[in-house]
Structures are given as C-alpha cells and as structure tokens.
C-alpha cells in the first residue's frame, strides 16, 4: 500500500503540453481514481479478513480434526490430531481440515443371519408369518456346524482407536467393520452346533464371535476397538414349537431327576437312621445281657452257700417265695379243690382280651 503514497508526486513531466488542455478532466479523473482506489482498498481489506476468517473452525469434545496443508497432514503421528478448541487453517487450496469423531461410540449390527423383518414390524413387536422354507435372497440365516439353520444377530459397539487410518486408509471403514462382523458371525456359527448356539453355550458363542471379530480387525488394520459385543440367536421360527418342546422335555427331565434325587436322599437318610437304631438296639441288648448274666451270677454266688447248707429246704423255700410273689401279682387266682376219686373236671375259659377285664365263667 506504500505504493499509493508515492503515487501523487509521480504525474509525469513528459506530458506537460497536454496537461493544461485536459486540466479539469484529468483533475476529475484523478479524483475519481483516488476515491475508487479507496473503495477497492477497503473491499480488499474486508476480503482479506473474510478469507482469513473462513479458516476458523472449532473442534468439539469427542472429536479430533486433521489439518491438511497442500493435501498433506500437518504434524507427525499423534500430533496430527487437533484436540477440542478453536483452530485456524488457511483457506482451501492451501490448507483444509477434516473432523473425525473419536470418543463417540459407534454401533454396527450384522446384516446377515436374521430373518426378513421390516423396522416397522420390529418396532411393533410383530413378526412376519413363518414359512416352511427360507428364500436365500430375502431371508437371512446362518448354517451351523451340524448343518442346521439358525437366526443370529450381533451388535457391536466400537471406538475408533486410529482415526488417521480410519479416515485415510479406508473408503468406508464402518462398512469394513460391518463386513468383518458379518464374517465373524458366519464363521463362528459354522463351528458351533445349533444347540450350543441356542442354549448350551450361548456365552461361548458370543465370545467366539468377538474373538474372531478382533482377529479380523487386527488382520485388516481397521483401527477400531470393540467395546461391547452382543449376540442374540433364535431357532427358525417355523420350528419354534419343536425347539420349545425340547426345552420343555428337558425341564421335565430335570424335574423327574430332582424327584428321584430327593427320594434317594430320603431313603438313604431313613436307612442310616434305621441302621443306627438297629446297632443301638444291639448295643443295648448286649449291655442288658451282660448285666443280667452278671447279676445272676452274683445272685447265684450269693445263694450257693445257703443252698449248700440245706438244699431241700432251700428249694422249697425259694419255690414258695416265688409262688407267693407270683400269686400277689396275678390278676386272678383260682383254686380248684380236688374232685373225689380223681375224676376229671371241666373248666371253661373265655379267652378274650377285649374288653380289658376278662370275664370268667364260673366252674360248673
């Protein structure tokens, strides 16, 4: 702009003859030029500001930006990533910038393996009518290791770990992740049986899908980290009842087994209780027998000297004593006097324990 200031003294001396004639005109022209120059100057300054200001941009939380100068990322490695805040780049042909979501969790769902259902149906919780066969083009399903058919859907949440690769190495990196997930699901289903996928090893199946996906991510350098992987599997809807029947039978079977086991417990604990009581009875029998015999032996030893003194008397005495005791304890004692001439005598007894007091027929 310094040129402008050196401008006035320059009107050229080589043209003085013309000057007087055009004096008023040139004066006016010079005025016009001068004012238009001022406008141009102003417009140019504004344009420069607009031009420079257009390069301002903000990077939000969870985003990074990469600045390209003449098409080449500015900086090296991690420094290429511009953090949250206000940044400035020169306008387009020289510099440009590209934003990349980074901490934001991306989500992708497998596109194969699930039956044909429209989003509206899914929202309403209704399902299309199950068919006796599956059209391979419209219906998705997986083939299992035992050549059965199963429906599975995997959803993966992932984070971009290498934003530069995510943007500059792949035309559509999220599509590549999607394909990897589809392959992981297909590949894993091909080595699990239908029962493992649906009931016996659901967690193992999910883990295997995740493992395969991670392997593919590494192999294909997709530069993402899987945060979460969920897999949902259902039997073919046409066979729903058949599968439910198996589950029911299994539940019944477990019930039957539980019942048998509780029977087992009951029988065994009763048996061991019985066994213990039998042993205890034997023990007490033994103790009683020993005690009894030894007390008898003592009694015998006590009585023996008395007996030796007078055996006859001893016997009579003992016998009578005992009989006496027996007679006092007896409920009824009946004495029959001897009939004349040894004639036999008839005696009738009603042997009936009920009612408690037995009745006695009087002897005739």
């Amino acid at each position: 702009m310094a040129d402008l200031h050196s401008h006035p003294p320059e009107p050229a001396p080589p043209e003085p003859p013309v000057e007087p004639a055009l004096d008023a005109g040139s004066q006016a022209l010079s005025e016009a030029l001068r004012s238009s120059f001022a406008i141009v100057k102003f417009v140019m300054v504004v344009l420069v500001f607009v031009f420079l200001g257009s390069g301002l941009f903000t990077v939000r939380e969870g985003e990074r930006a990469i600045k390209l100068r003449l098409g080449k990322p500015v900086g090296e490695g991690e420094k290429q990533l511009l953090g949250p805040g206000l940044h400035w780049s020169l306008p387009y042909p020289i510099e440009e910038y590209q934003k990349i979501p980074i901490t934001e969790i991306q989500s992708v769902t497998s596109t194969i393996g699930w039956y044909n259902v429209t989003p509206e149906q899914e929202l309403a919780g209704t399902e299309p009518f199950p068919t006796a066969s599956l059209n391979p083009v419209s219906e998705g399903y997986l083939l299992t290791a035992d050549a059965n058919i199963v429906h599975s859907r995997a959803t993966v949440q992932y984070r971009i770990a290498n934003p530069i690769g995510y943007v500059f190495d792949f035309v559509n990196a999220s599509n590549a992740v999607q394909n990897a997930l589809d392959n992981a699901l297909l590949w894993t289903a091909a080595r699990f049986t239908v029962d493992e996928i649906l009931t016996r090893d659901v967690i193992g199946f999910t883990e295997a899908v995740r493992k395969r996906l991670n392997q593919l991510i590494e192999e294909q350098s997709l530069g993402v980290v899987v945060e979460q992987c969920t897999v949902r599997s259902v039997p073919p809807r046409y066979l729903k009842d058949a599968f439910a029947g198996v589950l029911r039978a299994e539940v019944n079977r477990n019930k039957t087994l539980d019942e048998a086991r509780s029977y087992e417990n009951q029988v065994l604990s009763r048996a061991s209780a019985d066994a213990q009581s039998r042993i205890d009875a034997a023990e007490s029998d033994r103790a009683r027998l020993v005690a009894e015999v030894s007390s008898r032996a003592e009694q015998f030893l006590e009585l023996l000297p008395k007996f030796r003194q007078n055996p006859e008397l001893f016997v009579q005495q003992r016998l009578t004593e005992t009989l006496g005791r027996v007679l006092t304890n007896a409920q009824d004692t009946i004495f029959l006097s001897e009939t004349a001439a040894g004639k036999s005598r008839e005696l009738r007894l009603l042997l009936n324990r009920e009612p408690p007091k037995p009745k006695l027929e009087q002897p005739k």
Partner: protein
Amino acid sequence: MKRNPLTLTIGILLILIVALLLFVFQVRQSEVVVITTFGKPTRQIKDPGAYLKWPWPIQSVHRFDQRVQNFEDKFSEGLTSDNFNLLSSVYVGWKITDARVFYPKFAASTTPIAEAEKVLERLLSNAKAAVIGKHPLSDFLSPADVGNRFTEIEDEILAAMRSELLANDYGIEIRFLRIKRLGLPETVTQSVFERMTSERQVLTSKSQFEGEAEAQKIRSEADRKAAEILAAADGQATQIRGKGEAEAAKSLEVFQQHPELANFIFRLNALEGALKDRSILIFDQQIPPFDLFRGSHTNLLSK
C-alpha cells in the same frame, strides 16, 4: 501510458496465481495421482503434497482414491465337491496399487472404481466356483475340533484371486477377502427344516426317556444302598450281640459250680417273669403251697 505500481503488483500477482494453477497441483492424502503427457501415463504420485507439472495441453492430472475399497460380490450358487448347492457371497477389501496400470485400463469409464469391481466380480465368481468345488460341505460346516476348514477356504479363494490379478496386471491389489454370507437353495432349506424337526423330536423323546431311566436308576440305586446299609447294620448288630453273649459266657462259668441250682434259679426267674403281668392262675391241691389244703404239712412231717 501511466504506469501504476498497484496495478502492476496486482497484475504480477494474478499472473503468478494463473501460473501456479497451471504448473502446480496438489496431491491429497489418500489420493494417488497419475500424470499423463500427451495422454500417456508418465508419472505416479502417491505421497501427499504440492507438485509441479506442465500445463494442460501437455500434461494432465488424474486422481484416484487409493484407500481400501469394500466390494461384495453377488450371492451366487456353487457346487461343493459332494454335490451340495451352496450359495455364497464374499467381500473383499481392495485398493489401487499402481495407478499407471490402473489408469489406461479403467479411466475410459466415468466410474473407474465400478469398472474395476466388475472385473473383480468376474474373477471372484471363477475363483469361488473353483475353490468351493474342491471342498465338501463339511469343510464349511463342522465343529472347530473336527476339521473345520472355513478359514482355509477363504485363504484359497484369496490366493486364487491374487494369482489371477498377478497374471493380468490391473494395478490393483486385494488386501483381504472373507466370506460374508452362506445359504442353501430354498427347497433345501425345507428339507433341512424337516430334518431339524425330526431331530428335535428325537431329542424330546430322548430327554423324556433318559430322564425316566435315570430317575429309575437313581431310585433303585438308592434302594440298594439303603438295603446295603441296613444289612451292614444288621451284621454289626449280630456281631455286637455275639460279643455280648461271649462276655456273658464268661460269667456263666460261675454257674458250673452247681448247675442244678443254677437251673433251678433260672427257672424260678423265668416263671416269675412269665407270670408278671395280667395273668390268671388256676391251681389245684397238688401244687405247693396249695397242697397245704390237703394237709400236706402232715406229709412233710412224715417225711
């Protein structure tokens, strides 16, 4: 003419910009650029930055994306070595590696990438048919520990594709190839469903039968164990009683001193024990002490 330094500067600036536009071009990260001189590809630039060239009629710039492209082929039928119709579709990640070769082959079209993918599609269908035809269905579908060769099949298709691309240079490379989808013809799915249904029925009845059989086994086992426990207890009890008898027998030796007396005492005890409870006794005069009624004391005296 009046020489104005401002116009001069602006003029120079404009000329410079035009010259820059004519002579300089930019290669963006992720792009590969081919420079053609009079229509012939002469230079390839893969690294981003600004470069010089001759202006338009002499040299021109052609840009291509050199990032990895995703491509999926059509879901198509192939015959396995054991004559199963297997539908499959694969996806590949491919990229342009040599734009100088790529450009003359595909640049005639307005969509060179789509054009290249048509070639890939054709190559893939051949490679797939060849590889799938070499494998039985069980190579695709079988448990991991029973020779599942899924990954090998993918690798074989990839190898076939790579050698094909090497043989006819297209300036592209396949980075990875994986199977995306497998399926069976619709009629086959119907028979699969039938088989699965009968499998389920077998499982159902097996569950039922096995459950009952196992329960029965548990019950009879329990009964047997209980019997065993009781028998063992009985044995032990007999042993204990035997021991008791043996111990008692030691005391019995005492009775040897006068067996008749011992016998008498035992009988007396037995008699007393037997008549202890709710008994009715009927006597006549023969039995002491009722013989007293016959005046047996005189007998005694006479003795």
